[in-house]
């Protein structure tokens, strides 16, 4: 007998599985998958101003830095200001989906591709952002390589204000509505990577970025 049958066989025997109760149980499973009942959720504002304020507050608590611009076209200049202020190179790997903005005018040289080890700065967008915890949701796609938010020491993300949702449940519903099925990788990112493994003392910058900078775009 193969291991699958052995393991499932023992589970079935212990649960007293028979054809009749399997029918009822399958109904329960189908119901659970169809209803997708939400559990208790912490109170989060639902109006735009409240959502943005909560997102900013929680992002800062996760050690992300924040900026705001009026329009997408203003983003490159804001990114350039941040990089200059941080004494970082004006050179970045970028999600190909964002390469169309006028980065050259802001003095930033962008490479639309997946990230490699030597990339110092990565610029991404996000699928949406979650106010409850100050979290970005990034969905992998040919135009959204997952490495851009992971390998560089500095990660800059453009966050359209209209895409800030209250909680993760809302993010899943958005993904179901817009993408149909889940992409290969959904990555929720809440600030720079960190570790507390040595003496339970948190240090920023473990394997992923040391810095996460969020640029909220008001009319996007």
């Amino acid at each position: 007998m193969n291991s699958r049958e052995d393991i499932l066989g023992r589970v079935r025997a212990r649960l007293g599985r028979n054809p009749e109760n399997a029918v009822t149980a399958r109904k329960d499973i189908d119901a659970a998958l169809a209803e997708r009942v939400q559990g208790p959720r912490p109170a989060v504002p639902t109006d735009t101003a409240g959502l943005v304020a909560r997102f900013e507050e929680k992002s800062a608590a996760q050690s992300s830095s924040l900026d705001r611009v009026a329009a997408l076209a203003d983003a490159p200049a804001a990114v350039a200001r941040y990089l200059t202020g941080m004494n970082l190179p004006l050179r970045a790997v970028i999600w190909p989906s964002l390469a169309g903005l006028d980065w050259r005018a802001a003095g930033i040289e962008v490479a639309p591709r997946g990230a490699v080890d030597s990339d110092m700065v990565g610029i991404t967008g996000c699928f949406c952002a979650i106010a409850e915890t100050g979290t970005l949701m990034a969905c992998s796609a040919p135009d959204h390589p997952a490495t851009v938010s992971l390998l560089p020491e500095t990660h800059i993300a453009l966050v359209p204000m209209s895409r800030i949702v209250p909680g993760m449940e809302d993010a899943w519903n958005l993904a179901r509505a817009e993408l149909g099925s889940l992409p290969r990788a959904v990555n929720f990112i809440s600030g720079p990577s960190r570790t507390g493994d040595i003496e339970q003392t948190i240090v920023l910058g473990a394997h992923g970025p040391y810095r996460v900078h969020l640029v909220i775009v008001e009319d996007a």
Partner: protein
Amino acid sequence: MESRSRHFKANAAASLANPVLQANLQTAKGKFVDKRAIAIKEIDDFEVSREAAKNIRNRVLENLDLWLEKFEETATARGATVLWAKDGDEICRHVAEIGQRHGVHKAAKSKSMLSEEANLNLALTAAGIRPIETDLGEYILQINDNEPPSHIIAPVVHKSLDEIADLFHQVHKTPRKTEIAALTREAREVLREHFLTADMGISGGNFLVAETGSVALVTNEGNGRMVTTLPRVHVVITGIEKVVPTLEDLTLLLRLLPRSATGQSISNYVSVLTGVKTPAERDGPEQLYFILVDNGRADVVGTEFQDMLRCIRCGACMNHCPVYQTIGGHAYGWVYPGPMGSVLTPLYTGLENAIDLPQAATLCNQCGVVCPVMIPLPELLRKLREKQVEKHLRPWFERLALKIWAMVAASPPLYALGSWLGVRYLKWLAGGRDRIAVLSVAPEWTLGRDFPAPEGRTFRELYRKGKK
């Protein structure tokens, strides 16, 4: 991992006598506890969320066979291969075979307790695949001659900064660093090279989502993302009990897991991974394998211990356990320490191999109160004690003592005589003082405290006298 749990008493005594370990445990004490207390306040009613989390886990366990089939169906539909393993050896065989099939030389691992259960690193090395632990704590243990972890969330909680500084200096042959940030950067640089050159990524799975056929991984360091993004092959090794129905259910559990573990409202990275990369994608694995592991779990389904399978491995029970805080994790002798380990180790490795673990608890119920999925840990420990007695696993003198006690307690005249003798003996032993410093029948009990001396007459005597 070979269990050393039968040597619990000796292990615990050694831990208590180790001044370095005691100092390190003191440093760690309370840090997670305080952070958790703050983090759960963000949830309006934590008890309501615990109840909901318990129900989600129970819903799956009650029909585990069918939920597993459902997960297998959805995961396979997205291009993953689902394999099953009865025990640790079978995990090792599967991973070695996958490695051979895809020409793997190096495997980068994010934390997986199942791989500890299976002793996977040894097997990989034997199969010509170099395993690299990438969680900072697990990496420290690996370069320290494959030392086992002492905590499921903070594997090196038993080590001081000084010890780690020495170790890096010796192993990396670099100048000795004493700043935590500098040590972390040194490990980052060593491990980055491995992430980029590994052919296989191995991860555990915090949850499996039946709705979508996904695995959910939480990490703070980003190593979970690295090993599931860069290598060509990704192998997920996880227990059969980890299935949850929907993304909504996952979301609720993700509110409880990091808060209970480290006091974070969310882990830095939560990755929900489904299937393999499409041809147009620039990153992601071409092959995805799930190894669903029994290793003792299936035989707990449907028993009085089934509640234990709700466990989401947050570590809150050990963080709050006075016994764990005093002896550390290694004394427990197997993969899982603390209260959850004292239940899991006997269930998974045999009651007779962990005879002292169910006893290694004061039953104070701190663990039961903090458990995010409401596992009645003290009750399960008590049930394991009952099982030990039923199976005649306790030492002969304990069994004899209990037999005598049962006989005496069932007979009022014998009981009266026993207590009549007892109080007089104890009064004599106290020698006029109101405390007994050394109780000759149970000297261990009075090691750290005195025994109050009785007045010299039993309750029955006093009662009879009062009535007259």
